[in-house]
Protein backbone atom coordinates (compact mmCIF):
# COMPACT_ATOMS: atom_id res chain seq x y z
CA UNK A 1 0.00 0.00 0.00
CA UNK A 2 1.29 3.41 -0.96
CA UNK A 3 1.53 6.00 1.80
CA UNK A 4 1.20 9.65 0.94
CA UNK A 5 2.68 12.22 3.26
CA UNK A 6 1.26 15.68 3.23
CA UNK A 7 3.93 17.54 5.06
CA UNK A 8 3.06 20.60 7.10
CA UNK A 9 5.49 22.57 4.99
CA UNK A 10 3.39 21.73 1.98
CA UNK A 11 0.31 23.23 3.53
CA UNK A 12 -0.87 24.23 0.09
CA UNK A 13 -1.84 20.65 -0.51
CA UNK A 14 -4.45 20.98 2.18
CA UNK A 15 -7.80 22.41 1.19
CA UNK A 16 -9.66 24.85 3.44
CA UNK A 17 -12.86 23.13 4.49
CA UNK A 18 -14.03 24.60 7.82
CA UNK A 19 -16.64 21.90 8.21
CA UNK A 20 -18.30 21.32 11.59
CA UNK A 21 -17.69 17.86 13.02
CA UNK A 22 -18.78 15.71 15.96
CA UNK A 23 -15.88 15.24 18.34
CA UNK A 24 -14.77 13.09 21.24
CA UNK A 25 -12.01 15.01 22.98
CA UNK A 26 -9.92 14.52 26.06
CA UNK A 27 -9.47 17.41 28.47
CA UNK A 28 -6.65 17.33 31.00
CA UNK A 29 -7.01 18.47 34.57
CA UNK A 30 -5.48 21.76 33.48
CA UNK A 31 -8.18 22.23 30.88
CA UNK A 32 -6.04 21.40 27.88
CA UNK A 33 -8.17 19.84 25.13
CA UNK A 34 -6.88 17.14 22.82
CA UNK A 35 -8.94 15.66 19.97
CA UNK A 36 -9.37 11.88 20.14
CA UNK A 37 -11.87 10.76 17.55
CA UNK A 38 -14.36 12.54 15.32
CA UNK A 39 -17.14 11.91 12.88
CA UNK A 40 -17.45 13.91 9.69
CA UNK A 41 -20.15 13.99 7.05
CA UNK A 42 -18.84 13.22 3.58
CA UNK A 43 -20.02 14.84 0.34
CA UNK A 44 -22.16 11.78 -0.44
CA UNK A 45 -24.02 12.13 2.86
CA UNK A 46 -22.38 9.17 4.60
CA UNK A 47 -20.28 9.58 7.72
CA UNK A 48 -16.67 8.74 8.27
CA UNK A 49 -15.14 8.21 11.71
CA UNK A 50 -11.51 9.23 12.05
CA UNK A 51 -9.32 8.37 14.98
CA UNK A 52 -6.74 11.04 15.66
CA UNK A 53 -3.47 9.13 15.65
CA UNK A 54 -1.19 11.99 16.58
CA UNK A 55 -1.56 15.63 17.55
CA UNK A 56 1.54 17.29 16.19
CA UNK A 57 0.99 20.92 17.07
CA UNK A 58 -1.48 23.17 18.78
CA UNK A 59 -1.75 26.89 18.25
CA UNK A 60 -3.98 29.42 19.92
CA UNK A 61 -5.25 32.54 18.22
CA UNK A 62 -7.97 35.11 18.86
CA UNK A 63 -8.75 36.75 15.55
CA UNK A 64 -11.72 39.09 15.86
CA UNK A 65 -11.52 38.54 19.61
CA UNK A 66 -12.73 34.98 19.13
CA UNK A 67 -10.34 32.47 20.72
CA UNK A 68 -9.70 29.31 18.74
CA UNK A 69 -7.21 26.48 19.06
CA UNK A 70 -5.89 24.99 15.87
CA UNK A 71 -4.55 21.42 16.11
CA UNK A 72 -2.36 19.91 13.46
CA UNK A 73 -3.10 16.20 13.48
CA UNK A 74 -2.28 13.04 11.64
CA UNK A 75 -4.48 10.02 10.89
CA UNK A 76 -4.98 7.24 8.45
CA UNK A 77 -7.89 8.26 6.20
CA UNK A 78 -9.00 5.83 3.50
CA UNK A 79 -5.77 3.93 3.91
CA UNK A 80 -3.60 7.01 3.51
CA UNK A 81 -1.60 8.83 6.13
CA UNK A 82 -3.00 12.36 6.10
CA UNK A 83 -1.98 15.56 7.81
CA UNK A 84 -4.84 17.93 8.58
CA UNK A 85 -5.90 20.77 10.85
CA UNK A 86 -8.86 20.87 13.16
CA UNK A 87 -10.12 23.88 15.07
CA UNK A 88 -11.85 24.25 18.39
CA UNK A 89 -13.88 27.41 18.90
CA UNK A 90 -13.87 28.07 22.64
CA UNK A 91 -16.93 30.33 22.84
CA UNK A 92 -19.25 27.95 21.03
CA UNK A 93 -17.54 24.62 21.91
CA UNK A 94 -17.69 23.73 18.22
CA UNK A 95 -15.07 21.66 16.44
CA UNK A 96 -14.27 22.06 12.78
CA UNK A 97 -12.07 20.33 10.25
CA UNK A 98 -10.19 23.40 9.08
CA UNK A 99 -7.91 22.04 6.39
CA UNK A 100 -7.51 18.58 5.02
Amino acid at each position, binding site marked *: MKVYYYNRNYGDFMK*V*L*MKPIEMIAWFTQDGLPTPVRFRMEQPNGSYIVIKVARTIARQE*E*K*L*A*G*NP*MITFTCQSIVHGMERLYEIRYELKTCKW*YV*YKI
Partner: protein
Amino acid sequence: MGTKNRIIFHIDVNSAYLSWEAAYRLQHGATLDLRTIPSAVGGDATTRHGIILAKSIPTKPYKIQTGESLYSARLKCPNLTVVPPRYHLYMQCSKALVSLLEEFSPSIQRFSIDEVFLDYSNMDIHWGDPIDAAHRIKDRIKEELGFTVNIGVSSNKLLAKMASDFEKPDRVHTLFPHEIQGKMWPLPVEELFMVGRATTSKLHKKGIFTIGQLAISDPELLTQWLKSHGRLIWQLANGLEDSPIREDYPVKGLGNSATLPFDAEDRETSHRALLSLTETVAMRLRDIRKFAGVLSISIKDRDFQSYSHQRKLEVPTHSTNILYGIACELFDELWQGQPLRHLGVRASQLHRDDLYQLSFFKGDIERQKALDTAVDKIRAQYGCDSVMRSSFLYSGLSPMMGGVIQEEEYPMMSSLL
Protein backbone atom coordinates in the same frame (compact mmCIF):
# COMPACT_ATOMS: atom_id res chain seq x y z
CA MET B 1 0.58 66.15 35.72
CA GLY B 2 1.57 69.02 33.47
CA THR B 3 0.02 69.03 30.05
CA LYS B 4 3.50 69.42 28.65
CA ASN B 5 4.57 65.82 28.98
CA ARG B 6 1.22 64.16 28.37
CA ILE B 7 1.19 61.62 25.56
CA ILE B 8 -2.21 60.47 24.37
CA PHE B 9 -2.96 57.79 21.79
CA HIS B 10 -6.23 57.59 19.93
CA ILE B 11 -6.79 54.15 18.49
CA ASP B 12 -9.40 54.01 15.73
CA VAL B 13 -10.37 50.76 14.00
CA ASN B 14 -10.35 51.10 10.19
CA SER B 15 -13.86 50.49 8.76
CA ALA B 16 -14.64 48.79 12.06
CA TYR B 17 -17.78 46.77 11.40
CA LEU B 18 -16.50 45.62 8.04
CA SER B 19 -12.99 44.76 9.25
CA TRP B 20 -14.38 42.76 12.14
CA GLU B 21 -16.74 40.86 9.89
CA ALA B 22 -13.88 40.19 7.46
CA ALA B 23 -11.55 38.93 10.20
CA TYR B 24 -14.29 36.69 11.56
CA ARG B 25 -15.04 35.26 8.15
CA LEU B 26 -11.37 34.55 7.44
CA GLN B 27 -11.13 32.76 10.76
CA HIS B 28 -14.11 30.65 9.76
CA GLY B 29 -12.55 29.52 6.54
CA ALA B 30 -13.57 32.22 4.07
CA THR B 31 -11.07 32.56 1.27
CA LEU B 32 -12.12 36.05 0.24
CA ASP B 33 -11.19 39.06 2.36
CA LEU B 34 -14.11 41.51 2.31
CA ARG B 35 -11.66 44.37 2.78
CA THR B 36 -10.14 43.75 -0.64
CA ILE B 37 -13.40 44.08 -2.62
CA PRO B 38 -16.13 46.73 -2.71
CA SER B 39 -18.24 45.59 0.23
CA ALA B 40 -20.39 47.03 2.98
CA VAL B 41 -22.16 46.11 6.17
CA GLY B 42 -25.80 46.95 5.71
CA GLY B 43 -29.06 46.50 7.54
CA ASP B 44 -31.84 44.26 6.36
CA ALA B 45 -33.82 46.02 3.65
CA THR B 46 -36.87 43.80 4.19
CA THR B 47 -37.33 45.12 7.73
CA ARG B 48 -36.51 48.63 6.44
CA HIS B 49 -33.12 48.85 8.09
CA GLY B 50 -31.48 49.00 4.69
CA ILE B 51 -28.71 51.52 5.19
CA ILE B 52 -24.94 51.32 4.85
CA LEU B 53 -23.34 50.97 8.29
CA ALA B 54 -19.73 50.55 7.18
CA LYS B 55 -17.93 50.17 3.88
CA SER B 56 -14.62 48.84 2.65
CA ILE B 57 -11.87 51.07 1.29
CA PRO B 58 -12.27 49.75 -2.31
CA THR B 59 -15.75 51.38 -2.36
CA LYS B 60 -14.11 54.80 -2.26
CA PRO B 61 -14.27 55.50 -6.03
CA TYR B 62 -18.03 54.84 -5.93
CA LYS B 63 -18.53 57.61 -3.34
CA ILE B 64 -20.83 55.54 -1.17
CA GLN B 65 -21.71 57.33 2.08
CA THR B 66 -22.21 55.69 5.45
CA GLY B 67 -25.91 56.02 6.24
CA GLU B 68 -27.21 56.06 2.70
CA SER B 69 -29.74 53.48 1.56
CA LEU B 70 -28.63 50.12 0.21
CA TYR B 71 -30.71 50.81 -2.85
CA SER B 72 -28.81 53.95 -3.82
CA ALA B 73 -25.48 52.33 -2.88
CA ARG B 74 -26.23 49.46 -5.28
CA LEU B 75 -27.04 51.96 -8.01
CA LYS B 76 -23.61 53.53 -7.57
CA CYS B 77 -21.82 50.19 -7.33
CA PRO B 78 -23.74 47.23 -8.82
CA ASN B 79 -21.21 44.61 -7.69
CA LEU B 80 -21.27 45.72 -4.06
CA THR B 81 -21.17 42.79 -1.61
CA VAL B 82 -23.44 43.51 1.35
CA VAL B 83 -23.18 41.55 4.60
CA PRO B 84 -25.57 41.77 7.56
CA PRO B 85 -24.45 43.38 10.84
CA ARG B 86 -23.46 41.23 13.82
CA TYR B 87 -23.42 43.43 16.90
CA HIS B 88 -22.24 40.77 19.31
CA LEU B 89 -19.18 40.22 17.16
CA TYR B 90 -18.43 43.94 17.27
CA MET B 91 -18.69 43.99 21.03
CA GLN B 92 -16.41 40.99 21.24
CA CYS B 93 -13.82 42.60 18.96
CA SER B 94 -14.00 45.85 20.88
CA LYS B 95 -13.44 44.01 24.16
CA ALA B 96 -10.48 42.12 22.71
CA LEU B 97 -9.01 45.42 21.52
CA VAL B 98 -9.36 47.03 24.94
CA SER B 99 -7.86 44.03 26.73
CA LEU B 100 -4.84 44.11 24.41
CA LEU B 101 -4.41 47.84 25.02
CA GLU B 102 -4.62 47.32 28.76
CA GLU B 103 -1.21 45.66 28.54
CA PHE B 104 0.28 49.00 27.53
CA SER B 105 -1.32 51.46 29.91
CA PRO B 106 -3.60 51.38 32.96
CA SER B 107 -5.38 54.48 31.78
CA ILE B 108 -7.80 53.77 28.95
CA GLN B 109 -11.02 55.39 27.83
CA ARG B 110 -13.38 53.59 25.53
CA PHE B 111 -14.75 56.43 23.47
CA SER B 112 -17.03 54.34 21.30
CA ILE B 113 -17.19 50.77 20.11
CA ASP B 114 -14.30 51.31 17.72
CA GLU B 115 -12.39 54.20 19.29
CA VAL B 116 -10.19 54.12 22.37
CA PHE B 117 -8.04 56.73 24.07
CA LEU B 118 -4.93 55.52 25.83
CA ASP B 119 -2.78 57.63 28.14
CA TYR B 120 0.85 56.87 27.33
CA SER B 121 2.28 59.57 29.62
CA ASN B 122 5.36 58.27 31.46
CA MET B 123 4.87 54.85 29.87
CA ASP B 124 8.06 55.30 27.83
CA ILE B 125 9.92 53.93 30.85
CA HIS B 126 8.27 50.59 30.09
CA TRP B 127 7.62 50.57 26.38
CA GLY B 128 10.05 53.10 24.94
CA ASP B 129 9.47 55.89 22.48
CA PRO B 130 5.76 56.65 21.92
CA ILE B 131 5.91 56.43 18.14
CA ASP B 132 7.66 53.07 18.28
CA ALA B 133 5.19 51.84 20.85
CA ALA B 134 2.27 53.01 18.71
CA HIS B 135 3.65 51.02 15.78
CA ARG B 136 4.09 47.99 18.00
CA ILE B 137 0.52 48.25 19.30
CA LYS B 138 -0.81 48.67 15.77
CA ASP B 139 1.11 45.66 14.48
CA ARG B 140 0.13 43.46 17.39
CA ILE B 141 -3.55 44.25 16.87
CA LYS B 142 -3.19 43.41 13.20
CA GLU B 143 -1.41 40.14 13.85
CA GLU B 144 -3.31 38.88 16.88
CA LEU B 145 -6.80 40.20 16.30
CA GLY B 146 -6.74 40.33 12.50
CA PHE B 147 -7.88 43.90 11.88
CA THR B 148 -6.08 47.18 11.28
CA VAL B 149 -6.18 50.40 13.25
CA ASN B 150 -5.01 53.96 12.90
CA ILE B 151 -3.23 55.43 15.88
CA GLY B 152 -3.02 59.17 16.44
CA VAL B 153 -0.33 60.34 18.82
CA SER B 154 -0.35 63.75 20.47
CA SER B 155 -0.40 65.62 23.73
CA ASN B 156 -4.16 65.74 24.18
CA LYS B 157 -7.25 63.78 23.24
CA LEU B 158 -8.51 66.16 20.57
CA LEU B 159 -5.26 66.29 18.61
CA ALA B 160 -4.78 62.53 18.93
CA LYS B 161 -8.28 62.00 17.53
CA MET B 162 -7.67 64.39 14.66
CA ALA B 163 -4.36 62.64 13.92
CA SER B 164 -5.83 59.14 13.76
CA ASP B 165 -8.18 60.38 11.05
CA PHE B 166 -5.43 61.43 8.61
CA GLU B 167 -4.44 58.72 6.15
CA LYS B 168 -5.96 55.24 6.40
CA PRO B 169 -5.59 52.33 6.91
CA ASP B 170 -3.01 50.79 9.23
CA ARG B 171 -1.06 53.97 10.00
CA VAL B 172 0.42 55.89 12.92
CA HIS B 173 0.19 59.69 12.71
CA THR B 174 1.35 62.40 15.06
CA LEU B 175 -0.20 65.81 15.57
CA PHE B 176 1.75 67.60 18.26
CA PRO B 177 0.98 71.28 18.95
CA HIS B 178 3.86 72.47 16.75
CA GLU B 179 2.40 70.49 13.83
CA ILE B 180 -1.11 72.00 14.04
CA GLN B 181 -0.47 74.72 11.48
CA GLY B 182 0.92 72.37 8.88
CA LYS B 183 -1.28 69.33 9.37
CA MET B 184 -4.60 70.47 10.82
CA TRP B 185 -5.21 74.04 9.70
CA PRO B 186 -5.47 73.32 5.96
CA LEU B 187 -8.31 70.82 6.58
CA PRO B 188 -11.94 71.82 5.88
CA VAL B 189 -13.65 73.13 8.97
CA GLU B 190 -16.26 70.34 9.05
CA GLU B 191 -13.48 67.85 9.79
CA LEU B 192 -13.05 69.40 13.22
CA PHE B 193 -14.51 67.55 16.20
CA MET B 194 -17.77 69.18 17.44
CA VAL B 195 -18.36 70.95 14.13
CA GLY B 196 -21.46 69.37 12.69
CA ARG B 197 -23.67 70.13 9.75
CA ALA B 198 -25.46 73.12 11.29
CA THR B 199 -22.28 74.80 12.52
CA THR B 200 -20.54 74.15 9.20
CA SER B 201 -23.16 75.99 7.18
CA LYS B 202 -23.09 78.90 9.66
CA LEU B 203 -19.30 79.10 9.41
CA HIS B 204 -19.39 78.85 5.61
CA LYS B 205 -21.75 81.81 5.47
CA LYS B 206 -19.18 83.88 7.33
CA GLY B 207 -16.43 82.78 4.96
CA ILE B 208 -14.77 80.30 7.32
CA PHE B 209 -13.90 77.21 5.31
CA THR B 210 -10.78 75.77 6.93
CA ILE B 211 -9.83 74.94 10.49
CA GLY B 212 -7.02 77.48 10.18
CA GLN B 213 -9.45 80.26 9.33
CA LEU B 214 -11.50 79.35 12.37
CA ALA B 215 -8.41 79.26 14.57
CA ILE B 216 -7.31 82.80 13.68
CA SER B 217 -10.82 84.23 14.06
CA ASP B 218 -11.55 86.47 17.03
CA PRO B 219 -12.74 84.22 19.88
CA GLU B 220 -14.82 87.08 21.34
CA LEU B 221 -16.78 87.49 18.13
CA LEU B 222 -17.28 83.74 17.85
CA THR B 223 -18.55 83.64 21.44
CA GLN B 224 -21.02 86.45 20.80
CA TRP B 225 -22.21 84.77 17.66
CA LEU B 226 -22.30 81.05 18.53
CA LYS B 227 -22.30 81.38 22.35
CA SER B 228 -20.20 78.91 24.34
CA HIS B 229 -20.00 76.54 21.38
CA GLY B 230 -18.18 79.27 19.44
CA ARG B 231 -15.48 79.53 22.05
CA LEU B 232 -15.23 75.74 22.27
CA ILE B 233 -14.66 75.19 18.56
CA TRP B 234 -12.18 78.09 18.50
CA GLN B 235 -10.22 76.37 21.27
CA LEU B 236 -10.41 73.03 19.45
CA ALA B 237 -9.22 74.65 16.21
CA ASN B 238 -6.19 75.87 18.13
CA GLY B 239 -5.63 72.44 19.63
CA LEU B 240 -6.51 73.63 23.12
CA GLU B 241 -8.09 70.78 25.02
CA ASP B 242 -7.00 69.15 28.24
CA SER B 243 -9.71 66.74 29.36
CA PRO B 244 -8.38 63.72 31.23
CA ILE B 245 -8.72 60.12 30.14
CA ARG B 246 -12.00 59.06 31.72
CA GLU B 247 -11.90 55.46 32.71
CA ASP B 248 -15.29 55.56 34.31
CA TYR B 249 -17.42 57.87 32.28
CA PRO B 250 -20.62 58.99 33.98
CA VAL B 251 -23.63 58.01 31.92
CA LYS B 252 -25.79 61.09 31.41
CA GLY B 253 -28.68 59.45 29.71
CA LEU B 254 -29.64 56.36 27.81
CA GLY B 255 -32.19 55.49 25.24
CA ASN B 256 -33.22 53.08 22.57
CA SER B 257 -34.88 53.65 19.27
CA ALA B 258 -35.92 51.43 16.43
CA THR B 259 -37.21 51.56 12.91
CA LEU B 260 -40.33 49.42 12.78
CA PRO B 261 -40.65 46.63 10.21
CA PHE B 262 -43.88 48.34 9.05
CA ASP B 263 -45.43 51.77 9.56
CA ALA B 264 -47.39 52.09 12.80
CA GLU B 265 -50.67 53.62 11.73
CA ASP B 266 -52.76 53.37 14.87
CA ARG B 267 -52.31 54.41 18.47
CA GLU B 268 -52.32 50.87 19.79
CA THR B 269 -49.44 49.67 17.62
CA SER B 270 -47.40 52.75 18.46
CA HIS B 271 -48.02 52.21 22.16
CA ARG B 272 -46.90 48.63 21.80
CA ALA B 273 -43.70 49.75 20.09
CA LEU B 274 -43.12 52.21 22.93
CA LEU B 275 -43.64 49.40 25.43
CA SER B 276 -41.06 47.30 23.64
CA LEU B 277 -38.54 50.14 23.72
CA THR B 278 -39.37 50.97 27.33
CA GLU B 279 -38.71 47.37 28.32
CA THR B 280 -35.17 47.69 26.99
CA VAL B 281 -34.53 51.16 28.38
CA ALA B 282 -35.90 50.35 31.84
CA MET B 283 -33.90 47.14 32.04
CA ARG B 284 -30.73 49.03 31.17
CA LEU B 285 -31.55 51.66 33.80
CA ARG B 286 -32.00 48.96 36.44
CA ASP B 287 -28.79 47.35 35.27
CA ILE B 288 -26.77 50.50 36.02
CA ARG B 289 -28.88 51.16 39.15
CA LYS B 290 -30.24 54.55 38.11
CA PHE B 291 -33.63 56.23 38.14
CA ALA B 292 -34.75 58.33 35.19
CA GLY B 293 -35.55 61.93 36.10
CA VAL B 294 -36.68 62.92 32.63
CA LEU B 295 -38.30 60.77 29.99
CA SER B 296 -38.40 61.77 26.34
CA ILE B 297 -39.82 60.11 23.28
CA SER B 298 -39.08 60.74 19.64
CA ILE B 299 -40.99 59.74 16.56
CA LYS B 300 -40.22 59.87 12.87
CA ASP B 301 -43.06 59.69 10.39
CA ARG B 302 -43.33 58.21 6.94
CA ASP B 303 -41.93 61.41 5.41
CA PHE B 304 -38.89 61.32 7.69
CA GLN B 305 -40.08 64.26 9.78
CA SER B 306 -38.90 63.91 13.37
CA TYR B 307 -40.63 65.13 16.50
CA SER B 308 -39.83 64.73 20.16
CA HIS B 309 -41.42 65.45 23.48
CA GLN B 310 -40.18 65.14 27.04
CA ARG B 311 -41.29 65.48 30.63
CA LYS B 312 -39.66 65.73 34.02
CA LEU B 313 -40.98 62.97 36.23
CA GLU B 314 -42.59 63.84 39.56
CA VAL B 315 -40.99 60.79 41.07
CA PRO B 316 -37.84 59.41 39.38
CA THR B 317 -38.19 55.74 38.61
CA HIS B 318 -36.89 52.81 36.60
CA SER B 319 -40.06 50.79 36.63
CA THR B 320 -41.05 49.52 33.19
CA ASN B 321 -44.77 49.98 33.82
CA ILE B 322 -44.53 53.52 35.15
CA LEU B 323 -42.14 54.65 32.41
CA TYR B 324 -44.37 53.04 29.80
CA GLY B 325 -47.40 54.94 31.13
CA ILE B 326 -45.53 58.22 30.85
CA ALA B 327 -44.22 57.37 27.39
CA CYS B 328 -47.79 56.76 26.25
CA GLU B 329 -48.99 60.08 27.69
CA LEU B 330 -46.15 61.87 25.92
CA PHE B 331 -46.98 60.05 22.73
CA ASP B 332 -50.66 60.97 22.85
CA GLU B 333 -49.72 64.63 23.31
CA LEU B 334 -47.26 64.53 20.42
CA TRP B 335 -48.83 62.32 17.78
CA GLN B 336 -50.90 63.93 15.00
CA GLY B 337 -52.18 60.69 13.51
CA GLN B 338 -49.56 60.27 10.80
CA PRO B 339 -48.05 56.82 10.05
CA LEU B 340 -44.79 56.31 11.94
CA ARG B 341 -41.68 54.43 10.88
CA HIS B 342 -39.35 55.11 13.80
CA LEU B 343 -39.83 55.55 17.55
CA GLY B 344 -37.43 56.21 20.39
CA VAL B 345 -37.52 56.32 24.18
CA ARG B 346 -34.84 58.03 26.18
CA ALA B 347 -34.14 58.52 29.88
CA SER B 348 -31.98 61.32 31.23
CA GLN B 349 -31.25 63.24 34.44
CA LEU B 350 -30.31 59.98 36.03
CA HIS B 351 -30.39 59.64 39.81
CA ARG B 352 -29.13 56.95 42.14
CA ASP B 353 -31.78 54.33 42.69
CA ASP B 354 -31.21 53.65 46.37
CA LEU B 355 -33.06 56.70 47.68
CA TYR B 356 -36.43 57.80 46.45
CA GLN B 357 -39.46 59.86 47.39
CA LEU B 358 -42.50 57.83 48.32
CA SER B 359 -45.72 59.15 46.89
CA PHE B 360 -49.31 58.92 48.12
CA PHE B 361 -50.65 59.03 44.60
CA LYS B 362 -48.46 56.70 42.57
CA GLY B 363 -49.50 53.25 43.72
CA ASP B 364 -47.27 50.71 45.33
CA ILE B 365 -43.72 51.22 44.10
CA GLU B 366 -42.38 48.26 46.03
CA ARG B 367 -44.64 45.87 44.17
CA GLN B 368 -43.51 47.25 40.80
CA LYS B 369 -39.95 46.93 41.92
CA ALA B 370 -40.41 43.31 42.95
CA LEU B 371 -42.02 42.53 39.61
CA ASP B 372 -39.19 44.17 37.64
CA THR B 373 -36.54 42.43 39.72
CA ALA B 374 -38.18 39.07 39.14
CA VAL B 375 -38.47 39.64 35.39
CA ASP B 376 -34.86 40.83 35.16
CA LYS B 377 -33.66 37.75 37.01
CA ILE B 378 -35.54 35.40 34.73
CA ARG B 379 -34.24 37.21 31.67
CA ALA B 380 -30.67 37.19 32.94
CA GLN B 381 -30.81 33.47 33.50
CA TYR B 382 -32.92 32.22 30.62
CA GLY B 383 -32.49 34.94 27.98
CA CYS B 384 -34.42 38.05 27.02
CA ASP B 385 -37.10 36.11 25.17
CA SER B 386 -37.88 33.81 28.10
CA VAL B 387 -40.50 36.19 29.51
CA MET B 388 -42.51 38.52 27.35
CA ARG B 389 -45.79 40.37 27.41
CA SER B 390 -48.49 38.53 25.57
CA SER B 391 -49.53 41.73 23.77
CA PHE B 392 -46.52 41.18 21.51
CA LEU B 393 -47.78 37.80 20.33
CA TYR B 394 -48.63 38.00 16.60
CA SER B 395 -48.00 41.76 16.70
CA GLY B 396 -45.05 41.63 14.32
CA LEU B 397 -43.03 43.56 16.88
CA SER B 398 -40.15 42.29 18.95
CA PRO B 399 -40.91 42.37 22.69
CA MET B 400 -37.66 44.19 23.40
CA MET B 401 -36.64 46.59 20.67
CA GLY B 402 -33.56 48.70 20.26
CA GLY B 403 -30.50 46.74 19.23
CA VAL B 404 -28.08 49.52 18.57
CA ILE B 405 -27.97 52.11 21.07
CA GLN B 406 -27.99 55.84 21.10
CA GLU B 407 -26.03 57.18 23.93
CA GLU B 408 -24.19 60.43 24.36
CA GLU B 409 -20.95 59.17 25.77
CA TYR B 410 -20.85 55.63 24.52
CA PRO B 411 -22.18 55.87 21.00
CA MET B 412 -23.58 52.51 19.96
CA MET B 413 -22.46 50.56 22.95
CA SER B 414 -24.08 49.76 26.14
CA SER B 415 -27.12 47.71 25.30
CA LEU B 416 -24.59 45.02 24.47
CA LEU B 417 -22.41 45.56 27.52
